[in-house]
């Protein structure tokens, strides 16, 4: 009997477009740790020890193949002086926009050492790296320079900037790019294995391709090139097919896919060029029965896993608080049942 692969070996094998012992499972459990701990999201994320303890706990409980150091997207806006709103049982939200379009003229790159929420993530990463001993991938997260302004300026104001004020858009991208690459590389230095680069705005669901190619795409290419480790581009449920070749050309090694497109179709378009991550419907998961969870896992594995180059995950980049434990356990059980190669 062969020895099972470690999570790291399994993932690296899949990234090289070969078949590992079984399909890797990335349950992206961030906020869910707060639910497991019984603490409020605010309390939970306030101490790195909480996050480390429950990352380790959830890795075992759900037979997960990664640690996920992501806290909440709005943590990055704290670097710019933004407020974070903490609900009792849901993801923290960015508060009011942090600056106006005029304010871009006076903007500078924040020092991450001065941002407690980011320093806590680095501490979590360091502690998990010690525990992982190189056998478990640690996934860090950044917001792309092109998508971050939704929280910095507000969505409407950002669209006005994008369409009508190119000089200030370019200035903001220059600052955000510097911040993003510094933040990503700090996480890699702390022990992260790869960076999940959240970029929902590059989806043609949000910005038309022609506009993206002339605005955000050059920024994304340059930023990803400056990140000193593997990058997973994630569109947080947005459609990827119309820009999949451009994403591949950024050098991203992994692509998060949503539910509006067939993973089978994307797999055919990208075979051998990028590893797919997805695409269980996280929004539906709270209502899934154990049987439904199992059926969904089997279906996605059969469509996308043959030949490797596939990691099973959710479609959005985070498991919602409301998903019952039994559903997550059923997902893990189904991976054990249907995920061993040959699938």
């Amino acid at each position, binding site marked *: 009997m062969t020895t099972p692969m470690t999570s790291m070996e399994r993932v690296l094998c899949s990234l090289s477009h070969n078949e590992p012992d079984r399909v890797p499972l990335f349950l992206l459990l961030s906020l869910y740790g707060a639910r497991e701990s019984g603490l409020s999201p605010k309390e939970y994320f306030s101490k790195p020890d909480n996050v480390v303890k429950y990352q380790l706990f959830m890795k075992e409980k759900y037979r997960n193949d990664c640690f996920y150091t992501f806290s909440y997207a709005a943590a990055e806006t704290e670097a710019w002086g933004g407020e974070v*709103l903490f*609900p009792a*049982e*849901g*993801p923290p*939200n*960015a*508060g*009011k926009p942090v600056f106006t379009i005029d304010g871009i003229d006076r903007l500078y790159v924040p020092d991450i050492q001065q941002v407690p929420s980011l320093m806590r993530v680095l501490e979590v990463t360091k502690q998990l790296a010690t525990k992982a001993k190189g056998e478990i991938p640690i996934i860090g997260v950044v917001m792309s320079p092109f998508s971050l302004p939704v929280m910095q300026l507000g*969505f*409407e104001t950002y*669209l006005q900037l*994008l*369409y009508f004020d190119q000089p200030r858009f370019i200035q903001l991208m220059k600052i955000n790019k510097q911040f993003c690459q510094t933040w990503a590389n700090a996480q890699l230095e702390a022990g992260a294995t790869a960076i999940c680069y959240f970029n929902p705005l590059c989806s*043609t*669901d*949000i*910005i*038309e391709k022609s*506009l993206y190619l002339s605005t955000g795409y050059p920024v994304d290419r340059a930023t990803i090139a400056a990140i000193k480790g593997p990058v997973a581009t994630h569109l947080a*449920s947005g*459609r990827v097919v*119309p820009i999949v070749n451009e994403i591949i050309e950024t050098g991203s090694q992994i692509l998060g896919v949503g*539910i*509006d497109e067939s993973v089978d179709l994307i797999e055919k378009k990208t075979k051998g060029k990028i590893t797919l991550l997805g695409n269980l*419907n996280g*929004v*539906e998961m*709270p*209502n899934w029965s154990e049987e439904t969870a199992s059926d969904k896992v089997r279906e996605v594995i059969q469509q996308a896993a043959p030949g490797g180059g596939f990691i099973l995950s959710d479609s959005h980049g985070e498991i*919602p*608080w*409301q998903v019952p434990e039994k559903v997550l356990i059923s997902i893990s059980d189904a991976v054990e049942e249907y995920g061993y190669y040959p699938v």
Partner: protein
Amino acid sequence: MSEDLEKKQQLVRALVSVDKSAVSEILSTEFTTKGIDHVADTLQQALEEIGTAWENGSMSLAQVYMSGVISEEILNSILPANYLSKLTQPKIGTAVFLDHHNLGMKIVSSLVRSAGYPVVDLGVGVNVDNVIDFIGKEEIKILLISVLMLPSALAVEELIQEIARTYPDVKIVVGGAPFRLDTNLSEKVGAHEMGKNAGEIFEILSRLKRELI
């Protein structure tokens, strides 16, 4: 292609290209030659087409948003004084429930205003009490609720139950990513209608208006 269809296609192209002067020229010409009702009809059809195109992936949310904003702006500049107050459309209220992301609601508000409906916006991050007070004070007949986050979508159930107790005749339309990604969710929370995209709002309002009569 009929002249009206050709005009609508020109308008769609101008809107999604964010070409304000072209939109203004098309609508002003239509107003001069065919009157304001024709302008409203043409605009509504164009915005419906753009909304549907977003749903099938051929246009972006940014284009839908800019189309709504430009339409509202241009229409306001050419509408006769007191035109809206003479219309007998039911009063529509909009609210972003618990969440703080208002782009979706802004898009729908712009579209609905462009079609001549009176719209009052309650704002973002509102709770059950805020909405109940708002419905009573503004005499809202149709309430459009937008959410982005799943917990907010689930909490809409409690809101709808409270509205049903206090103002049973008010019609409720929900929209936002959680409802689009889980198509059973709107029924679960008890909404009368769910809009998958902004362009669907006109058809939904037509149905609800028939129920209100």
